């Protein structure tokens, strides 16, 4: 295709490079773009919004893990900072657009500063330090958030009202459009959808820029990149800040959707694991992996987990020992963990990598 083709510039020249992958991505895009019309009801819309948010969260994580080759366990911390930024602004001030804007900006600044600090501090010594230190800082942050009751609402978190236009009671038109009433909920969904789309295309731009190529060169061989004159620490720190900023925005979007922010929905380690799993399943080092990883994982989480619980119930009523425990809905994480380990071993290229290999 010609370089001046609009699709080319939208995708920054980074095509799916596999017909099946392209088709899958197109299906995801269409489903998400028309979710309120295709799948009416609050549960499917909930799933669709979650997928949008997680695509950004996972893509921003892949910027670190897949493109820069460093492991961070603080991604949920930044996600949480975004969430709490909205929560604190909405709860303590007013559910207005101004408060929202201020909340988002403060959260972004805080997240990027924190990322910069952690990065400059630990990326300088050894990349492996980074993983350990992010883990430590993130768990300290989580504990802090649950203890600072007056500010964060502690373990209970905060429920709050959001700007009027985004509330369920708001009606954009008096008449339904294509059989669906356009209320504040749907507006919020589209706010999330378009923000996610924009952020994703921006991320695509970043990884395909000269900057992104240097990152990948560092991932392949940091000594060589350093020898070629690239300041490895600087590049890694910038990537870390970008990734943190994107995660913060994902947290903002989620907070708008849930109208609630608490430790369990933002800072918990379980979310960190989910992100890791989505990146690995989708495919590290390709942003399209984030799309497929997030979509597949969240669909499975919302529909398979229920099935698993029912299966466990069946086993239990059949009187089989131990197995009901293994398949109990609370043991969802057990299977995710096994799946995760197996994917890292046997499937490190993920779905996108496999699809691209098939083409060759």
């Amino acid at each position, binding site marked *: 295709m010609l370089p001046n083709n609009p699709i080319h510039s939208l995708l920054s020249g980074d095509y799916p490079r596999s017909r099946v992958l392209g088709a899958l991505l197109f299906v995801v895009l269409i489903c998400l773009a028309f979710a309120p019309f295709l799948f009416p009801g609050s549960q499917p819309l909930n799933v669709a919004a979650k997928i949008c948010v997680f695509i950004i969260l996972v893509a921003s994580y892949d910027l670190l*893990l897949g493109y820069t*080759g460093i*492991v961070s366990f603080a991604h949920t911390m930044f996600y949480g900072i975004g969430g709490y930024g909205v929560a604190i602004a909405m709860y303590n001030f007013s559910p207005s657009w101004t408060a929202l804007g201020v909340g988002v900006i403060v959260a972004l600044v805080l997240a990027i500063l924190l990322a910069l600090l952690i990065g400059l*501090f630990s990326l*300088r*010594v050894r*990349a*492996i*330090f980074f*993983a*350990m*230190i992010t*883990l*430590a*800082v993130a*768990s*300290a942050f989580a*504990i*802090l958030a649950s*203890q*600072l009751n007056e500010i964060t609402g502690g373990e209970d978190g905060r429920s709050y009202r959001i700007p009027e236009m985004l509330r369920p009671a708001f009606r954009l038109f008096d008449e339904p459009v294509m059989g669906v009433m356009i209320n504040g909920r749907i507006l919020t969904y589209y706010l999330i959808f378009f923000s996610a789309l924009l952020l994703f295309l921006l991320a695509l731009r970043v990884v395909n820029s000269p900057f992104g190529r240097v990152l990948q060169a560092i991932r392949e061989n940091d000594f060589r990149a350093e020898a070629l004159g690239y300041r490895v620490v600087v590049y890694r720190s910038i990537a870390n800040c970008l990734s943190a900023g994107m995660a913060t925005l994902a947290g903002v979007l989620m907070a708008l959707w849930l109208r609630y922010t608490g430790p369990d929905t933002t800072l918990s*380690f379980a979310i960190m*694991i989910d992100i*890791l799993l989505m990146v*690995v399943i989708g495919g590290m080092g390709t942003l399209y992996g984030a799309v497929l990883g997030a979509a597949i994982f969240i669909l499975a989480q919302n529909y398979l987990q229920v099935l698993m619980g029912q299966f466990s119930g069946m086993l239990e009523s059949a009187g089989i020992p*131990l197995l009901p*425990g*293994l398949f109990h809905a*609370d*043991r969802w*994480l*057990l299977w*995710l*963990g*096994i799946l*995760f*380990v197996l994917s*890292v*071993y046997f499937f*490190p290229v993920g779905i996108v990598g496999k699809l691209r290999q098939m083409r060759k």
Partner: protein
Amino acid sequence: MTAAADAPPTAALPKVRVDYLPMLLVPLLMLVALPLVGSVSTWVTLTVAALAMGMMIFLMASGLTLVFGLMDVLNFGHGVFISFGAYVSLIALGPLAGWVESDNLLLNIGVLLACILVAMLVTGGLGYAFERIVIRPVYGQHLKQILITMGGMIVAEQMIHVIWGASPIPLRLPEGLRGAIVIGDAAMEKYRVIAVVLGLTVFGIMHLVLNRTKIGLLIRAGVENAEMVEALGYRIRRLFVGVFVAGSALAGLGGVLWAFYRQTLTAGMGMEVNVLIFIVIIIGGLGSVGGCFIGALLVALVANYTGFLAPKLALGSSILLMVVILLWRPQGLYPVAKR
């Protein structure tokens, strides 16, 4: 490497620089805390508690730092052995329940030792399996190592839920180990004193093994330059498996002590303490056992003092301590000389 440096044999012996500064930090910290805490008796109680905690953290962390030093393997799943060690002690506690309630102190200590023995055996075996199945396939690949060991950790934690149930299990200290020894105004819990004694004993044994035996010599040499150890004709892999198993067993031991200290078992306890352990081995210098010991004491002292002075900052204090130490020595207190 100049001519001047190669002095003739008549010159004075070069000075051996023993680096005492980090060692001085521990008493210094205690002294600084005394006026801040205000009361001597409270200070004694806090300090003993901190020393006990420090010993336990050291036991749990020592294996991890050696494993990293020897083979450049960072096991994010190290906490598994801590949790498993703690839960496995239930196996010994079952048949020996009578000993726990007995008023015979020997039986009380016996049951604690039995728990430790069972836990060390099981976690040692688990460590052997973990090394073979989880770690061996990803040697030399840091990224995968971190991901896989983290995954292994989640699976193991969930397996604890499956085997022992999801709710916390209360753990009773043996009768004779409850309560405190009171000297003047200062109360020291008996169990903490025992933990300190146990911890010091293990540290002493480790020190002897590392400095007085051939195996210890090989481990120290291997931490510095594994390739050269191989070129001298030793199989570093076997050594590594041995250290991994021993480190896992020590983590199991630490897990038992930690569980009795908290008097509750939770599947996540290993993961929680893992964070502290990482801080400790970073502070100590990755690969250094002595640094790990001092790091553990420092972290525990700071945590206990701030826990008393400003409870909400307790965990944050460890991170602050790490930041301060790394600003002073970016590679930790005792950086290991690497190739």
